[in-house]
């Protein structure tokens, strides 16, 4: 029955619904450039979501762990074979995405008799100079976007826009210290996580709402964000990794250990982190 074009379109539409459903519980991912490189941050419940791909490329993901693993291996394989056969300088995020994983994800998404990848991917690539960092995000249907300065992953584009708006208001990020970068990334994460929670509670930012309700499109206020973060830090694991321009050797990726991260958290969260 899928031979009929409109059936196929319908089936693909159903897939979107199905996939959107899968990401509802997912934890947003934030990546941003700061003075010494790039910082990636997310909050996880055990399974790591941040990974090293190549000398200057890191990955952040949302979705099913098995699908993320598959795509992570594809990326690693492509990057290392290319880096060996040509040179490490020829391994770029854009090429890995455009000619590598994006077509694979798109194909899986449109082959309606097979399972799609339940995965959204963010690649952060450290430039040789500051201001040359690149960020790429790939959606579950294979569409990708390249941005400068920062990138985020969240359950829906609406939530990503909220996080983006928050990040745009954080001025001076490109000159920020690592502490400031951790602070901004955590708050952006919390904005995404809160909007996601509200959307789930039926107060969707996209759905029409009655006049007496507070507009869902307004960002959560600072106090709400802090309260949310305090609860999160106490219960879950903050995962954080950096690509450092000044790191010795060719590999620039480093995952921050719990005690180091503890020292970098905003002051009012440090105690909560220590007790957790």
């Amino acid at each position, binding site marked *: 029955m899928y031979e009929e074009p409109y059936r196929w379109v319908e089936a693909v539409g159903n897939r979107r619904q199905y996939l959107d459903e899968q990401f509802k519980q997912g934890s947003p991912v934030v990546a941003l450039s700061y003075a010494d490189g790039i910082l990636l941050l997310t909050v996880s419940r055990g399974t*790591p979501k941040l*990974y*090293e*791909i*190549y*000398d200057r490329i890191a990955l952040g993901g949302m979705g099913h762990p098995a699908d993320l693993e598959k795509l992570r*291996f594809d990326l*690693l*394989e492509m990057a*290392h*074979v290319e*880096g*060996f056969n040509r040179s490490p300088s020829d391994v770029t995020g854009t090429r890995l995405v455009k000619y590598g994983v994006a077509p694979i994800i798109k194909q899986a998404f449109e082959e309606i008799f097979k399972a799609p990848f339940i995965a959204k991917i963010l690649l952060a690539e450290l430039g040789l100079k500051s201001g040359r960092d690149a960020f790429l995000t790939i959606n579950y249907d294979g569409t990708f976007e390249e941005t400068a300065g920062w990138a985020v992953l969240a359950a829906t584009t609406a939530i990503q826009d909220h996080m983006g708006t928050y990040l745009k208001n954080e001025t001076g990020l490109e000159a920020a210290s690592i502490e400031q970068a951790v602070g901004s990334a955590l708050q952006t994460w919390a904005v995404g996580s809160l909007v996601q929670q509200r959307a789930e509670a039926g107060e969707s930012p996209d759905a029409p709402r009655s006049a007496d309700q507070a507009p869902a499109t307004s960002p959560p206020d600072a106090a709400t964000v802090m309260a949310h973060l305090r609860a999160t830090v106490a219960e879950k694991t903050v995962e954080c990794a950096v690509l450092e321009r000044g790191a*010795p*050797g060719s*590999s620039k990726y480093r995952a921050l250990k719990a005690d180091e991260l503890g020292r970098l958290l905003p002051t009012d969260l440090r105690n909560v982190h220590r007790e957790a």
Partner: protein
Amino acid sequence: MGMHGDFLQLLKEQGYQLETPVSARADGQELTSGTTILAMKYREGVLVAGDRRATAGNTVMYDRTDKVLDLDRHSVLAIAGVPATAYEMARVLEHSFKYYRRTQLQELSFEGKLRAVSKLLKDNVAAALAGTGAVAPIFAGYDLEHGAAKIFFYDILGAEFEGVEYAVSGSGSPTIRGILHYLNSWGTQPLSELSEEEATIQALRLLTCAAEFDSATGGVNREANLYPVVKLITKTGVQTITDRRLKPLFDAKVSRHV
């Protein structure tokens, strides 16, 4: 599939071959070779040094070769033999260690790294015997798991030997092997008790000795500001001693004895 994190296997699946089996050497063509490399343990870790000359027969091909190559933050490969093959091996190893760490989310064990070197040499036996690709490297590093510096050296067929105190390889190595044995046994203190500076001075002296008696080993050329490559591997990682630090040591502790 690469789920095992084996990069060499992945390359082979794509048609890669390390050795280039050549049945006979091209007539009259001298292959690039000749070297002195050494590794010795000192108080904080292991020192690895190499001269910088590449020769083909009587011809000096190049006087700024780097024969001590970083493989990762805690291990180096010092190479003696045919450079083309040796550099290729170092490239394969570097990528293999990275690929393993990034796919398996843990560092390849020290033993695993040693095996990787042996495996490459074994794959290369035909070229080694034909004379077009003989390599006898030294692998040295700091084993974080066991908290100890280690030295291993190999013959061209891939046999692995542990250098408990030191190891040497290359055409100039017979000259300094005896000296190392003498220093370690009857010197004022065993090599493993030398400080970083003392070990560096000994390495410079040893390479100067090798250059004295082996034409294929390059010595220090102060006018050209040319010094050997000296690297230290400790708990904190690989560190290269800059020429700026080697120069005064050479002037004060080596040259006046020559």
